[in-house]
């Protein structure tokens, strides 16, 4: 029937709408099923990834708390390095604070912020530094990555008086830290970020650990902004 054919060629708008809605429902179901099947595994992966990625920054600090439950989000603006939110993972052993891992950004890298993981013992000594994210030049600045060189290892054991505060710089700037051949901007930014984090930790240590149980309390607000020396 010609009439019928014409109708089929130019379907009414509501028919298109119904077809689309049906397909949308099918597709949503597909995604929902996949999400249900993969959800627990993804969650476990994320937890494992967190523990595993904090490990290199922690050397052999022993802690027994659940990292998820001791996370402190420090919303920007704050006195830590970086203009984005910082995260502090607080570590306790038998309910006594043993150290913290800071996730901060070094602002003055060669191209964009360098996201760093800085582990600090309760005493104020750096246990290790890891690079989480960066956009430094491949082959030059990206050698700060621990998989590409041992450059980050020199931070282990450093603290605000080892080396002295005015020696917290790369050698080219008269400090005690090695630079990388062909790249001094990136190391300079990292050294500065570690130093600033230590300064913050020294000034706010009690507040950082006191906020336990009350997650996401803004540490900054009830602290005098005295992290500058």
């Amino acid at each position, binding site marked *: 029937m010609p009439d019928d054919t014409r109708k089929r060629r130019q379907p009414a708008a509501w028919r*298109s709408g119904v*077809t689309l809605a049906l*397909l949308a429902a099918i*597709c*949503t179901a597909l*995604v929902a099923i*996949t999400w249900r099947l993969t959800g627990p595994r993804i969650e476990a992966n994320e937890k494992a990834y967190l523990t595993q990625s904090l490990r290199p920054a922690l050397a052999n600090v022993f802690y027994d708390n659940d990292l998820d439950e001791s996370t402190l989000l420090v919303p920007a603006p704050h006195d830590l390095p970086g203009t984005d939110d910082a995260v502090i993972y607080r570590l306790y052993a038998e309910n006594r604070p043993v150290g913290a891992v800071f996730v901060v950004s070094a602002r003055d890298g060669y191209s964009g912020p360098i996201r760093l993981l800085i582990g600090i013992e309760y005493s104020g000594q750096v246990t290790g530094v890891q690079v989480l994210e960066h956009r430094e030049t*491949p082959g030059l600045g990206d050698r700060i990555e621990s998989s590409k060189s041992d450059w980050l290892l020199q931070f282990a054991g450093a603290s605000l008086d080892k080396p002295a505060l005015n020696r917290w710089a790369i050698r080219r700037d008269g400090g005690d830290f090695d630079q990388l051949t062909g790249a001094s901007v990136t190391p300079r930014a990292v050294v500065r970020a570690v130093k600033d984090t230590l300064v913050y930790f020294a000034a706010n240590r009690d507040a950082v650990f006191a906020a336990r149980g009350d997650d996401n309390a803004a540490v900054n607000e009830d602290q005098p902004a005295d992290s500058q020396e």
Partner: protein
Amino acid sequence: MNSGSNTLRLCKDGLWDDNPGLVQLLGLCPLLAVTTSLVNGLGLGLATLFVLTCSNALVSATRRFIHSEIRIPMYVLIIASLVTCIELIFQAYFPALDRSLGIFIPLIVTNCAIVARAEVFASRNAIMPSIVDGASMGVGFALLLCAIGAFRELVGQGSILARMDMFIGGEPLRGLVLADGGFLLAILPPGAFFSLALAVALKNALDQRRTRLGGAIALRQPG
């Protein structure tokens, strides 16, 4: 044309004669961006292969219900759902690879090679040929990603197969290290363009050579 030679034709098209990357020059954004190493190329290649095959199958299966007015939203809906699924699967089973490929997994949605196959092939053909077409195009694209990834990794970093642990699990692997460091340009963005240009040139050179020798060997099947 019988169905056997048709299938062969489809495979040959996807892998060589009409390769999405080399000939149609589609999907270049991910191709240029992620191929800094073999493992990245392989990861994105497999993800694209999966999405392409499934989207061809789904588009072909629903082609009777797809009116031409709303076909593009329908393709997008199908492709976007498949990409979300593959992203979840990657997060669950290859988390390290997912982190390494980052935004380029979700961005498979925008790979025009996939919409192109849906529009040009799957919406006009039965399910089986559409699956074959999607698979061969996907394999062709994945092989190109692997080849460029391997080339750039080899020239740029002097290693091959580094970080294969992202696929097979276990400790981080440095791969087969042939030289300490390499020609940096290869892993920087310009190196991606150079590598692709070299690949296209090589393909054309091989084709021309075949055509010259072609009198003796029948290369193209009649019809």
